């Protein structure tokens, strides 16, 4: 779900970088306010690397398999570090593996990062410090699902609306609906896996979820 270089006009790419600048600036400001910036950088970076590696796992959905995005889970665990982490991961993916692009880095960061920030807010707001498995699972599912669902909506809308074209409006609508509906299984799977991982972490290593990164 990365938009490659050359697909979008320079104006859209610039707007993406503008939004990324604002979101990253806000995140960095909040991180600096925590007073634990230097200590948190290695933690956030290693977790980013772990997310990067985990997103390469193919989850079976017979008769096929899907690989997860995990931006909702990343938001829930990394908090204010989520947006910088996604920016870094997208940069490395574009440079090292050719997925996404450099001119579209800003817009891709918006597609993946803003939903992660929303997931982070949902998880922080609704998860209870006293562990209740059912409540925690529901909050985890919603965080994971919202993260990927918003990303899908942003991706499809941006791709269809900002590719310079003369495609008629009806065809555009069909493409938007088809693109969005095709991702519904992924939204559900991401929600379930996010809930399972968050429950596992809460039981095995609650510090990861409790540490203010």
């Amino acid at each position, binding site marked *: 779900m990365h938009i490659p270089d050359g697909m979008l006009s320079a104006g859209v790419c610039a707007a993406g970088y503008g939004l990324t600048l604002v979101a990253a600036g806000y995140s960095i400001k909040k991180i600096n306010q925590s007073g634990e910036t230097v*200590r948190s950088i290695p933690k956030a*970076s290693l977790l980013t690397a772990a997310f990067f590696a985990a997103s390469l796992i193919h989850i079976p959905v017979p008769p096929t398999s899907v690989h997860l995005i995990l931006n909702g889970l990343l938001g829930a665990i990394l908090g204010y570090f989520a947006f910088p982490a996604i920016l870094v991961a997208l940069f490395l993916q574009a440079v090292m593996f050719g997925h996404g692009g450099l001119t579209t880095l800003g817009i891709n960061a918006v597609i993946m990062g803003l939903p992660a920030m929303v997931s982070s807010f949902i998880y922080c707001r609704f998860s209870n410090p006293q562990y209740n498995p059912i409540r925690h699972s529901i909050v985890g599912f919603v965080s994971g699902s919202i993260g990927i669902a918003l990303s899908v909506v942003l991706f499809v809308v941006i791709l269809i609306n900002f*590719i310079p074209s003369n495609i008629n409006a009806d065809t555009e609508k069909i493409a938007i609906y088809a693109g969005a509906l095709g991702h519904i299984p992924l939204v559900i799977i991401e929600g379930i896996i996010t809930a399972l991982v968050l429950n596992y972490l809460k039981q095995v290593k609650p510090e990861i979820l409790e540490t203010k990164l």
Partner: protein
Amino acid sequence: MKTLINTDCQSNNIFHQWEPRSKLLAFTLLLFSFAMVKSIELAVFMLVICSVIFFLSGIPFRNLLKRWKIPAVLVLVTGTMLLFLSEGHLLASAGPFKITREGLIGFTLITSRVMSIITLIVILFETTPLLTIITAMRNLGLPRILADMTLFTLRYLYTLHWQLEQMKTAMVLRGFAGNKISSWKEYAILIGGIMVRSFDQSERVYRALAVRGYGFEQNYIPCMSWSRKDKTLCYSFAVLALMISSIQIYLNMPGV
């Protein structure tokens, strides 16, 4: 997880010798000017420029092909949609499919922009080591948090991926098939397991860094000076980028 970057950057041509900061600036300007191209005439000019720069860089063509392959599916799907579903002056039709002049222009523009921009990125990253580029970005004002996170992530990416593969192999050796929906819980534990490992490792990494003075450095990295050759190359690219952008802005004006 195999990187597409060819790290063999030892060469004596101008792109390998170019100072990284000015090179990064020059390529960024040219990349964004390429993203602005909306006319066929400029697209041809852009492809010519790209070909010349690529020829001068001395990078093997197969490296470029590897990169072009990655976005090919998405570009082809989008390009085909543009080609067959665009409205405008009819050029040809076969059954429900029609090719219009606007569709053909849209398809050509997207394909040429993708190819040109990817070519420039390949030249930039195959003639400069990634660590040098991150250092140059830091010198150009990239916030410390982002620069450090990029370096740490890069450093531990392969280590953690290797650990994850080991954990998966261990699960398989204990009878995990992992091809059913019922195995999602095991996959979640696998993902959770790598999070726990990375979290524990990050504590050790931080302590090791702290005793070496991490967080107390005065100067992050020394700035490199620009030679006359670096300046000339940077200004040439900037003029080229400005020229492409100006022509495109002029062509966008109503009545032209």
